[in-house]
């Protein structure tokens, strides 16, 4: 599965970078996130209770940040385990560009899913991933938006 997207965030690049590395902000922006810890080696360990239609599953994700180039880009390697539900492995390249006083965030995701998730949910994986990304960035942008400006955000 390949996906990409772009979001304009109304704050300066350093702040976006800091928030993307802040477990508390990440936990707040991921729907169903039950825990998010930063480990000593810099990786993140997350537990997320996800629901897609009738499917309910708790996923444990191990996120490693590599190719760090603050505050312009990094790559997230993700190893996601959903127990009986299946697993996913993938990486996301994240680029931050200055755009006036705002920041343009671009991402490119490449992922593979396996187990029952791939066997039974193949037709839904793409849409579900798109929705999760959209939900995450909608919440992430609100972190920087005053209530008055929230309505004017562009995709």
């Amino acid at each position, binding site marked *: 599965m390949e996906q990409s997207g772009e979001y304009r965030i109304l704050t300066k690049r350093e702040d976006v970078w800091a928030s993307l590395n802040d477990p508390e902000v990440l936990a707040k922006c991921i729907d169903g996130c039950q825990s998010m810890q930063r480990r000593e080696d810099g990786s993140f360990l997350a537990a997320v209770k996800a629901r897609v*239609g009738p*499917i309910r599953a708790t996923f444990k994700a191990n996120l490693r940040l590599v190719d760090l180039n603050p505050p312009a880009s990094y790559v997230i390697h993700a190893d996601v385990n959903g127990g*009986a*539900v299946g697993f996913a492995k993938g990486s996301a390249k994240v680029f931050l560009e200055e755009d006036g006083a705002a920041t343009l965030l671009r991402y490119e995701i490449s992922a593979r899913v396996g187990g029952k998730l791939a066997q039974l949910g193949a037709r839904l994986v793409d849409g579900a991933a798109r929705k999760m990304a959209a939900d995450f960035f909608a919440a992430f942008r609100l972190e920087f938006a005053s209530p008055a400006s929230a309505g004017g955000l562009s995709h």
Partner: protein
Amino acid sequence: MHSFDYHKPSTLAEAAALHQGAEDAAYLSGGQTLLPTMNQRLAAPSDLIDLAGIGELAGIATASGQVCIGACTRHAEVAASDAVRGALPTLASLAGQIGDPQVRNRGAIGGSLANSDPAADYPAAVLALNAVIHTDRREIAGDDYFLGLFETALEPGEIITRIDFAVPARAAYQKFPNPASRFAVAGVLVADYSGDVRVGVTGAGPCAFRALAFEAALAESLDPRALEGADIEGVIFNSDLHASAEYRAHLVRVMAQRAVAQLL
């Protein structure tokens, strides 16, 4: 399958109370999605609340310009109903194209709409036939009901009780089914309300949607050729192992054209 408590209430109030009191309850309608999901251990509700025993969720009625279908009505009942076939044959035909005989004899309209699978057939009818979805709490306009992938306007614990479809002058449904599951790779229902045309599309996006560009073109000229220059905007078409986004976009136009040709 994990163990769970099974309840079969006979009133809506009882069902809602059971749902509220349980840790992680699920309503059971026809069970054609929920039960296979539980079998695969992809869901493990603590309580199953079977809605089949609630009398007011059953039955089909026709009233001035409307076909009203109780939420627990099976697809096979809608397909075979003389009342539906007489007043709104397109809806009976659509119901007869859902899944296979097993699915049609167990699956029910309320469960299908509460689940809101992006490839289910009924959502196209809800949008094109200007339906109103009645619940135990309120009425929801069909246009306001589908919000996203498996996401509807229903609140937690809310129960669909009845769906009222507005009878058009004429209508037609065309779908390109997945040959194995009979889910819609793309399905389009076109309804003509004496010049006001509504087009409901399923299978093609994260949830069913109205093809407004098609509606405008068909209001000008109710002719399959009118759709050739009309492009649907603002929809991210589904892409999966069955069909790419480009192919689906193409199928939607072809199905819409076939539906228009059929209703003329």
